[in-house]
């Protein structure tokens, strides 16, 4: 992007939103819900900030790369996506080295993105938006937007979606290399955006299609160790899972696909049916033998994200965030895309204990509004105590989180920090302090958006002392569309 063009874009994003938004038919965003302004999205160009201004003191030892992914393009030629999840993947890279910070963002050059960028309009159906296909749809990868999360293995950076393949990028330049095939027989397979990485580098992941569940075990070297396709009547939507020492744990919500509606031209999202009176099945798979599976039942619950799981052979403990039933969540996501504050949008922490001998389930319910749970990468699939989340503290009718929370799931104690109502807080990840060994010793690093300054920032907290406020914030000269998930890789 040329400097002039970038300056113009920056100016528009930073200072002059209203006229442009009016022109785009989104009059509500800038005036009534300024926190939703980043939902406008970008126009398909990347972003670069070579020297980012740092406020406060960056901790010595916090060196590395922080990659994030999220929906970055929301409209073309006057047509706007209807659902937040439809947006085309914008990959961000923050580089932190000896107190110097730079930022870069590039759209993942998916097959869909390249074709539509060239045409200047949408050509393919999206997950939640009915767009007549003007290009052949061979499978999920024909409509893959690679917009949800990231994974780095060696020199291979992956932009992850849910329904199709990972897209591989160059971690240094964020240039797209192409669709990743883990092996010939896994070409085009669904590969979820929530792989779990154990401390030894072992990657576990899954994918679903037509009621079947694929599970993958991949070595730190990127080689597939094992995979299987299991007939478990998987729901039409399955976003995340948890891994303990011995088990893979899935919550299979009562979401079915109305194929007649899909054939009649409805987007996938509208064709999903929520079975409020049917159970959510808890599927527990033996990591050592995928054929050893147990299913428990609990009342219908819709869950996007898990923190972690651990087991001692008898007791299996899983923490997660319970969201709204799917239809209500989708209604909220569509309101956001229209620039309206969702009428209802709450999700709250849960800890599920399963007694594997008696089959008894116990759920601890909490009431804080949270999402995007993270744990210390050193405790994945191990016993853990802490979970960190963005949270809402007295936000009133405003959309979005404005603070962070650390929950001690053993004692129930919590620690919180609030930026106040001019800030929207996004996912923050835990970065262990080099040389430390105890869970939680390190920093909580993530992004946010300042509604008044109309700029996005990176914030760094002492993960065990959130209440003290951010140690440092790095201010971008522009706003970045809200993202979903990221990972930090120490230098």
């Amino acid at each position, binding site marked *: 992007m040329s400097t002039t063009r970038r300056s113009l874009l920056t100016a528009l994003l930073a200072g002059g939103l209203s006229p442009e938004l009016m022109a785009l038919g989104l009059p509500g965003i800038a005036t009534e819900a300024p926190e939703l302004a980043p939902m406008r999205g970008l126009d398909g160009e990347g972003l670069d900030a070579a020297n980012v201004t740092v406020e406060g003191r960056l901790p010595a030892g916090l060196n590395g790369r922080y990659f994030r992914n999220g929906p970055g393009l929301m409209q073309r030629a006057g047509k706007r996506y209807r659902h937040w999840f439809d947006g085309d993947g914008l990959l961000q890279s923050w580089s932190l080295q000896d107190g110097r910070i730079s930022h870069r963002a590039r759209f993942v050059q998916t097959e869909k993105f390249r074709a539509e960028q060239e045409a200047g309009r949408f050509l393919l159906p999206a997950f939640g938006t009915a767009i007549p296909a003007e290009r052949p749809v061979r499978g999920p990868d024909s409509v893959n937007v690679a917009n949800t999360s990231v994974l780095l293995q060696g020199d291979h950076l992956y932009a992850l979606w849910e329904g199709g393949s990972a897209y591989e990028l160059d971690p240094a330049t964020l240039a797209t290399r*192409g669709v990743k095939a883990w092996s010939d027989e896994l*070409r085009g397979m669904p590969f979820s955006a929530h792989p779990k990485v154990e401390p030894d580098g072992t990657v576990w992941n899954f994918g679903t299609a037509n009621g079947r569940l694929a599970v993958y075990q991949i070595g730190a070297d990127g080689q597939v160790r094992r995979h299987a396709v299991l007939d478990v009547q998987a729901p039409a939507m399955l976003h995340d899972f948890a891994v303990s020492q011995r088990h893979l744990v899935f919550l299979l919500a009562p979401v079915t696909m109305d194929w007649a509606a899909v054939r009649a031209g409805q987007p996938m999202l509208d064709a999903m049916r929520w079975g409020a009176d049917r159970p959510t099945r808890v599927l527990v798979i033996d990591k050592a033998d995928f054929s050893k599976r147990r299913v428990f039942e609990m009342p219908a619950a819709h869950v996007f994200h898990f923190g972690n799981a651990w087991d001692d052979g008898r007791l299996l403990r899983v923490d997660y965030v319970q969201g709204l039933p799917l239809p209500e969540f989708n209604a909220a996501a569509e309101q956001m895309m229209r620039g309206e504050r969702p009428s209802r949008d709450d999700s709250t922490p849960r800890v599920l204990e399963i007694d594997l001998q008696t089959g008894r389930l116990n759920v601890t319910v909490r009431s804080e509004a949270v999402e995007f749970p993270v744990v210390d990468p050193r405790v994945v699939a191990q016993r853990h105590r802490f979970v960190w989340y963005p949270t809402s503290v007295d936000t009133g009718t405003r959309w979005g989180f404005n603070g962070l929370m650390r929950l001690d799931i053993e004692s129930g104690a919590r620690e919180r920090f609030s930026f106040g109502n001019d800030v929207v807080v996004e996912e923050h990840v835990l970065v262990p302090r080099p040389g430390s060994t105890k869970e939680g010793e390190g920093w909580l690093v993530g992004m946010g958006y300042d509604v008044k300054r109309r700029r996005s920032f990176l914030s760094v907290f002492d993960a065990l002392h959130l209440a003290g406020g951010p140690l440092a914030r790095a201010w971008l000269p522009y706003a970045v569309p809200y993202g979903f998930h990221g990972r930090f890789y120490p230098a």
Partner: protein
Amino acid sequence: MKKALLTAALFALLPLSSHAADITLEVEGLDASRTTGAALLVGIYTEAGQWLNNAASGQRFALDAAVGGKVTVVLKNLPEGQLALSLFQDANGNGKLDMNAMGMPTEPYGFSNNAIGQYGPPKFEQAVVTPAAGVPVKVRLN
């Protein structure tokens, strides 16, 4: 003399054109990154009852020289009248359309008439064409 030669030549060509025994097949949409050692496999069907089950004949064309995801081949000695084609890019040259573990095709495929099925292959009737002499059949793989 010239005229006699021309007439002879035309007569010589007649059996070919009147029986539509050879047709030119223009294919696009090949995965250009997987053409080395690859082949285009074409199944020719003449009856609905045999569709995608028992081909009247099959022909194979090496794709090593394909450029830009396109290739033009000549199907020889075809039966007269209407027929339907099923074709795919045998990217790894193993002679079959490979599927992934979820049963999704992992090699580009297509049908005559660019027929598209609804959550499955198209019907024979959707793919039927009646080749005319000198007019190529065009198929886009996807």
